[in-house]
Structures are given as structure tokens and as C-alpha cells.
């Protein structure tokens, strides 16, 4: 029986996640009994699950337990695809921060508090952020400060203000700092005028100075004098909430956000024909999951998602992912998840032993991958050989819908305009030959009013 602990679940003595026969379970240790019982019996669990803020679970047979100190074993509702904060756009991180604060406010109503505010406790389910760590709630005793305040500021507030005030790409700091962006770094990177925002001044600039000042001064626990009343705690949360809510980033000015509007090569007839072909190919293979790589704002991803297929859109451009996510939110789409990903440098394994956060390639597999208007960027802009590209796609999907863009295409000519053409093998023949080694080509169709060809391929058994 395959049975192993989840690599990123070891810090909290309250319990841990483990996999058994491909199903994820959460063990609740006896030490957490009082808190777990209060979560369930107080009605907080029901309230959070009913409002879609907390992942639902069912209690299963205690015999599933992995050790003697077990109080309960839970089977949480599975998440289709695990994503990480450095793969989220601005609004995804902002919505996740607001959900976390909403949960903390709700928890306080029921006499509990969030002891863990890690951004990794949020995942996207049916298009919305949901809190997944059922063991992050502790009994609240009036007077106690919020122990997760530092963590909230580092995991959510600092990256959000940096993205909003300085540069949208600074969310990538989360990939370097697994416990959130250090506040002294955030404070030094923020522009001077950020100090005129009163709440930001308190939660980032003063907070960072306080951390620095007391870094080597232990607090004496027995000297209790001052406390944080419930009203003060609610004031702190309200301040964080209003600060986060007012943060803005307008998705524009990047390379790809107006691709379909400004790109004359993509005349309407070609786009419509490509849509028809993609739709027809999808009908032919009926996948349950689709990964659209280089999805832009999700124009073609939505052909899949509108057929009820679970679709994940990956793109390198934060503006495209932002527009895609906001569209999904506006339209109430539940089976499309836009994520930020550089295919030439996908998210690695990070944390302890490089295993706490799983690398992109180990997080799942698609029934079908879409690679539309992508291959010329991989070959010409990134010098990737065709055989390596075919090998990559063979690892991630069972079937592939891929567009070949020849050198004569005006977009490829643009890529070659400023560099030497060192790609004599970038031909349709070589493309078919290399991909034919790992895929069986089912069909190919020329896209009207363009020089491009769309292929449907099935991965060969390894």
C-alpha cells in the first residue's frame, strides 16, 4: 500500500498530510484535540465551509492513522492542481489575502484565531481562493495578540505593496523567500511616497524597524502587562483589510497584453478558423483536463473550459494572467485557472531538501496540452532544440494540440530581425520528424489566411 507523508507538511505538531493510494489525508494529533473539537462544535467549520472559505473534509476511520497519538483522520476535498503564490497574478494574491483576513474575522466570532497565515494555505478551487489547512485554528483568549501578524505581512502584504507600488514582477521574491518577503527588504524597495500611506507606514515601515530593533532582544514572557483587546485586534485586521483592498495594479504596458488587438498577422478569419480547429480536435479526444501553455489572456483556453473541461492557463506575462483571472472572476467561471509560469524556467522545488514546494513538472499531468503560437518562441527566442521541446510535451500530456509557425511567418521574421538565424533545422519537416518520435500525428490542418499549421498528436507509450 503506497503511503507517504506530504513533504511540505511537517512544521505543525497539530498534525500532517499524507498520501495513501493516491488519496490525500490529514492526521489530527491528540495535542490538537481541544482546538479541533472547538472548530467543529462551535459551528466555525460549518460557517467557513458554507461560505466557501475553508476546504470541506470528511472524518474517516481512525485505522488510517499513521501513529499512536492520532485523534482524528480527515479526508479533505482534493484540489485539482496545487499552485503557489509566486505563480499567482496580483489579484489572485490580493483575493487570497482578503480571504485570509475574512477567515480570521469569522474565527474571532467563534472564539478562535488563525495561528498560521501562510500564503501556501490558500489554493484555488472552482475559480476562488480557499483555505486548505484545517489545523490552523487555535482557541482565542482575549488579550492575546495575533501570532500570525508577522506572517500575514510577509506572505501577503509585502509582496502586494511591492507589486502595486514598485514592480509587478516582485512577487517572484516569494520564490526566493519561502517564509514571505522580509519586511526590511520590502521597506527598502518601496518608494519614499509609500510612507505617506498611514497603514503602510505602520505595517511595513515601522514593523520592519521594530523587527530590526528587537532582533537580538528576547522578550521576557513572565513580564505581562499590556494586552491586545478584541476591539484592538479587530482594528488591526480592519486596517490590514482596508490597506489590501485599496491596492491596485492596472494590467497594461507589457509585451503580450494586447497581442490579439495589435497583432495584424492574426486577422479575424485566421483566429476564427483556429478556434474551430481547436474545438474540433478537443471534441475528437474528449480530455478531462487541458493545460494551455502560453495561453495569453485565455482566448483559446476558454474553448476547452466552456466544454466543461478543467483548464489551466499558463503564461509568462503578469498582465495576461491578471486579465485572464479578472475575466474568469467577472464571468463566474469555475473551471479555468490562470497561472504565471515561465516555461523555460518553471517553478522549481523549494524549501527543505527542495521538497516543501513541489516543482511544476511533478505537480500533475494534463490529458491534453495546447501549444498555440508557442513553438517559435521556444526555438528562436530561447534556442531550444525541437527534440527537447517534444520531450517536454511528452512528459506533461497524453495528447497535444500544437501549432507550427514557419520561418516565413511575419512573427518569426520579427524574432529573427535582430539576431543571426542559427536555426537551419527549424522547418516543418524537422518539426514533424522530431515530434513523430514521441507522438503519433493524428491529423494536421492548415490555418486559413496564415502560413501556420495545427496538429493533433497522441503521446506514444514510453
Amino acid at each position, binding site marked *: 500500500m503506497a503511503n507517504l507523508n506530504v513533504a511540505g507538511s511537517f*512544521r*505543525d*505538531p*497539530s498534525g500532517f498530510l499524507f498520501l495513501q493510494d493516491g488519496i490525500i489525508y490529514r492526521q489530527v494529533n491528540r495535542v490538537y484535540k481541544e482546538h479541533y473539537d472547538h472548530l467543529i462544535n462551535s459551528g466555525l467549520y460549518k460557517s467557513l465551509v458554507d461560505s466557501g472559505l475553508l476546504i470541506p473534509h470528511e472524518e474517516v476511520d481512525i485505522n488510517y492513522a499513521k501513529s499512536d497519538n492520532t485523534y482524528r483522520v480527515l479526508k479533505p476535498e482534493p484540489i485539482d492542481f496545487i499552485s503557489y503564490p509566486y505563480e499567482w497574478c496580483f489579484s489572485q494574491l490580493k483575493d487570497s489575502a482578503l480571504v485570509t483576513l475574512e477567515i480570521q474575522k469569522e474565527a474571532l466570532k467563534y472564539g478562535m484565531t488563525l*495561528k*498560521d497565515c501562510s500564503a501556501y494555505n490558500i489554493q484555488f478551487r472552482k475559480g476562488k481562493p480557499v483555505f486548505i489547512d484545517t489545523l490552523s485554528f*487555535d482557541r482565542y*483568549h482575549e*488579550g*492575546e*495578540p*495575533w*501570532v*500570525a*501578524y*508577522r*506572517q500575514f*505581512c510577509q506572505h501577503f502584504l509585502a509582496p502586494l505593496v511591492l507589486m502595486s507600488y514598485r514592480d509587478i514582477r516582485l512577487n517572484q521574491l516569494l520564490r526566493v523567500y519561502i517564509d514571505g518577503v522580509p519586511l526590511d527588504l520590502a521597506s527598502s524597495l518601496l518608494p*519614499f511616497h509609500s*510612507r505617506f500611506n498611514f497603514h503602510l507606514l*505602520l505595517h511595513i515601515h*515601522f*514593523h520592519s*524597524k*521594530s*523587527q*530590526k*530593533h*528587537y*532582533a537580538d*532582544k*528576547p*522578550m*521576557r*514572557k*513572565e*513580564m*505581562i*502587562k*499590556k*494586552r*491586545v*483587546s478584541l*476591539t*484592538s*485586534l*479587530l*482594528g*488591526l485586521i*480592519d*486596517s490590514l483589510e482596508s490597506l489590501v483592498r485599496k491596492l491596485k495594479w492596472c494590467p497594461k504596458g507589457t509585451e503580450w497584453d494586447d497581442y490579439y488587438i495589435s497583432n495584424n498577422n492574426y486577422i479575424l478569419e485566421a483566429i476564427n478558423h483556429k478556434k474551430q480547429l481547436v474545438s474540433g480536435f478537443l471534441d475528437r479526444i474528449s480530455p478531462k483536463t487541458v493545460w494551455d501553455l502560453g495561453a495569453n489572456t485565455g482566448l483559446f483556453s476558454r474553448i476547452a473550459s466552456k466544454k466543461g473541461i478543467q483548464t489551466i492557463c499558463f503564461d509568462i506575462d503578469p498582465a495576461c494572467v491578471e486579465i485572464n483571472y479578472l475575466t474568469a472572476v467577472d464571468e463566474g467561471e469555475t473551471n479555468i485557472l490562470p497561472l504565471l509560469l515561465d516555461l523555460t524556467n518553471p517553478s522549481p522545488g523549494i524549501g527543505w531538501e527542495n521538497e516543501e514546494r513541489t516543482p511544476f513538472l511533478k505537480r500533475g499531468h494534463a490529458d491534453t496540452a495546447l501549444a498555440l503560437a508557442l513553438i517559435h518562441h521556444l526555438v528562436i527566442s530561447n534556442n531550444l532544440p525541437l527534440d527537447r521541446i517534444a520531450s517536454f510535451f511528452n512528459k506533461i500530456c497524453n495528447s497535444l494540440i500544437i501549432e507550427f509557425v514557419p520561418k516565413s511567418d511575419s512573427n518569426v521574421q520579427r524574432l529573427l530581425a535582430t539576431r543571426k538565424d542559427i536555426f537551419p533545422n527549424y522547418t516543418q519537416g524537422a518539426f514533424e520528424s522530431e515530434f513523430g518520435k514521441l507522438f503519433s500525428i493524428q491529423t494536421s490542418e492548415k490555418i486559413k489566411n496564415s502560413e501556420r499549421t495545427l496538429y493533433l498528436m497522441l503521446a506514444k507509450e514510453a
Partner: protein
Amino acid sequence: MKGNLETQSVISSAVFSLPPLMFAAYNIHAYIDPGTGSLIIQVLIASFLGALFLLKVFWGKVKVFLNNLFSQFRKGNG
């Protein structure tokens, strides 16, 4: 700009030189280190933010009351 920085520096020194002993060392049983500096700044700012929060809630109630009053007044005139 320099003056602003100096003022901020003076305020920061005054605030952060308060001895840690003044502040709560709570019965903290969380598995995550809340951080001494983070706890102290929280204690320092929370009372003020709590007061602001109460004002906000009070003002919200005043606005609702006034809105109701005006809408009744308009209905009465209509």
C-alpha cells in the same frame, strides 16, 4: 526630504526604545515564531487602530441612520 527622514527617525527611536518588558509576553503556544519586534509593534499600534475601528463603525451607523431619515423624509414629501 531630509527633515522628514530625521523626524521619522526620531519617532522611530522613541517608539522602539520602549523596553520590551513593558509589553505582553503572552501565553504563546503557536508553532510559528511570531517575532518579538512584530509582537511589540502590534501591541503599540493595535489600540490606536482599535479606536479608529470603533469610530469607523460608529460613523457607519450614523450614515445608515441619516440615510434612513432622509429617505423617510423624501417619501413623506413624495
